[in-house]
């Protein structure tokens, strides 16, 4: 079995920390060569059969360099195909593990089904659709592989502030789903969604924390170098304390993430909560980082703004903090009420 730190070392060698936002197409090739596309694919399906720890380690390193290659949607797409029951499953898995790209969309789909069974509407948040052969889409009739060359299928790029990522709308106009490419039916879609959601949250959380770590490193380095009033600004206690708080937020969010990665019984809301905390820590770290960089942080010359923009994007992917914090509160409240009722029943019984 591959050790976690071997994976991390290999990732750091392939994607060195000083080469931020590495070229997308080169990165994609490298990612495929390293076998990362099949890290989570079970051995019986030709994959490496590694667990959440391995993918978390990889996504952390990809976050650290502000990866431009769409590994997260690719991994999720592959997992969806792996869980699906299409006839050509083995062939698809082989092609996808080898570098063909069929991402899962990361934003809601607003689709309508016609009487004739065709589908129209917009599927949001498809990463790098320009390099995809198909997209895994949640259609009204279930999850399906939608080939991009099928009739009624077009893609529209929608530029985002995080210029290291490319987001597309997949526009369906009377698209007739191919039965052979249906991964689930309507009933099975919810189950697949529930299986994929924690994977998406863990990957995004790792992406957040890898990037937050890099943003903190850049900031601390800048604070030691930048001099004002005859000393490095790292020596000003008020600024130093802010850096300490950034580190604290980051390390605590990392601890929660890894504890949930390793907890097989963590609920999907608990995993989403770890992503929320990670994304909020990333946001906090980058907001402070901009301020601590002073003027240079407001220019495109310095890379720190790219971390902030990624933080703001990651915050919104797969549900906002407002949404998940409320859900966490609601579930904790229900669990607490249940425990109290049980205790009362036990006491009176």
């Amino acid at each position: 079995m591959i050790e976690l730190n071997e994976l991390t070392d290999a990732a750091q060698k392939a994607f060195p920390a000083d080469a931020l936002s590495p070229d997308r197409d080169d990165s994609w090739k490298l990612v495929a060569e390293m076998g990362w596309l099949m890290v989570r694919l079970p051995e019986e399906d030709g994959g490496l059969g590694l667990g959440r720890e391995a993918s978390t380690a990889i996504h952390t390193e990809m976050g650290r360099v502000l990866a431009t290659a769409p590994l997260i949607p690719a991994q999720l797409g592959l997992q969806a195909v792996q869980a699906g029951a299409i006839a050509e499953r083995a062939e698809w898995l082989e092609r996808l593990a080898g570098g063909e790209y069929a991402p899962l969309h990361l934003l809601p789909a607003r689709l309508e089904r016609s009487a004739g069974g065709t589908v129209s509407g917009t599927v949001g948040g498809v990463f790098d659709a320009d390099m995809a052969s198909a997209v895994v889409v949640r259609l009204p009739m279930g999850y399906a592989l939608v080939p991009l060359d099928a009739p009624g299928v077009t893609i529209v790029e929608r530029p985002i502030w995080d210029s290291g990522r490319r987001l597309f709308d997949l526009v369906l106009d009377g698209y007739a789903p191919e039965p052979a490419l249906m991964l689930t039916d309507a009933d099975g879609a919810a189950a697949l969604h529930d299986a994929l959601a924690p994977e998406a949250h863990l990957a995004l959380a790792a992406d957040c924390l890898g990037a937050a770590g890099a943003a903190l490193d850049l900031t601390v380095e800048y604070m030691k170098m930048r001099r004002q009033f005859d000393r490095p600004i790292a020596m000003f206690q008020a600024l130093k304390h802010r850096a300490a708080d950034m580190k604290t937020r980051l390390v605590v969010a990392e601890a929660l993430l890894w504890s949930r990665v390793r907890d097989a019984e963590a609920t999907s809301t608990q995993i989403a909560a770890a992503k929320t905390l990670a994304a909020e820590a990333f946001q906090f770290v980058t907001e402070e980082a901009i301020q601590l960089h002073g003027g240079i942080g407001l220019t495109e010359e310095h890379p720190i703004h790219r971390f902030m923009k990624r933080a703001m994007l990651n915050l919104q992917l797969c549900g906002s903090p407002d949404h998940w914090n409320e859900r966490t509160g609601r579930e904790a409240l229900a669990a607490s009420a249940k425990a109290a009722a049980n205790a009362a029943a036990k006491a009176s019984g």
Partner: protein
Amino acid sequence: MTDTPDLEALRRDVRAFLAAEAPAGWRDASRTQEDFVATQRDWFAKLVKAGYAIPHWPAAFPGGGRTLAEQKVIYEELAKADTPRLLLSFVSTYHAFATLHECASAEQRDRYLPRILEGETWCQGFSEPGAGSDLAAIKTKAERVSRPGGDVYVVNGQKVWSTMAQFADKCLLLVRTSSDGPKQAGITYLLMDMKTPGVSVRPIHQIQGDEEFAEIFLDNVEIPVSERVGEEGKGWAVAQATLASERGLTLMELSYRMRGALARVAALIQAHGHEDERGVLRDFGTLVTQVDAVCAIADQFLDNRIRGIERMGDASIVKNSYSRALRAYAKLGLRLGGMDEQYVAPITFGDLNTGNWMADFMNSYAWTIAGGSEEVQRNIIAERMLDMPREPKGWVL
């Protein structure tokens, strides 16, 4: 303070002017730097003509000679009518004016002030890559050299964060003429023509897509000694006059504009159907009160100035509370807007309401970093208002 009859009359006049002349649709007409500059020039010319562009100048100039109370009325009305802020001419009418009026020779004054009203614009060459909060650390070097037509300073160095220098005709320039003694003592103040050989300007690409600032590179630029303001080595005092020229009107104006812009947050809440969620209304209400309070403190600051009872540090309180409220405003918009705001949208230059909350959020940092960072203001508040000790002067590593 309540308006006196005179102020009431002025307010009526300004409102009548604005009802007739306030530009409509200027946001859409300011989507490129060029269009923005054209809009700005046009609106400045209209205000000059109407007599509302330079209320703080002496009465000798048409539209000048206004009291601070009158200036406040004019700016309040400009803000409430949601007119474009006068960004392109700001350095000219405030910083250049104050410098020329208070510190320059009669000859310099008479030459340059009238041209400002005709549309000549100035920029400020103060900050340098190594001298931000610590402005006195500037290194741009000026050597005095004899030339047949008269002595000149030969200037070499680099300036940064120069607001709209790419469109400027003239520059207020701080240079170092000596490296001996305290660092403030070797600074000299010059007036530079931006078309002088050796001057090159490179706009700074900002993270929200704007290019509000520029770098100025100075390569053996020759500036006649006659363009010096004050004595050689006494430029630091002149720079203080430049920096003190803006008397709180801007933050009052901006606070009122932010209050007006709360309607954008309200529209977002309605558009997203957040009305029934108590958390959202609570957070919106908290913001409304925060913004109202910033308007109140900005107002009070000017009233105290008018009454001559301003205290040390008051300006820092206004700046920090404004910048924090602006950050909170942008963050609430960003949060309520959700994923929509992550898509790039065309922005309006020079407006706190650019049309995209991400851009507004990034713009808000200009207020916590530039013009004396939030941290520098905290030092001022602690030391000048609370009389807390400064760090020891002899603190050397």
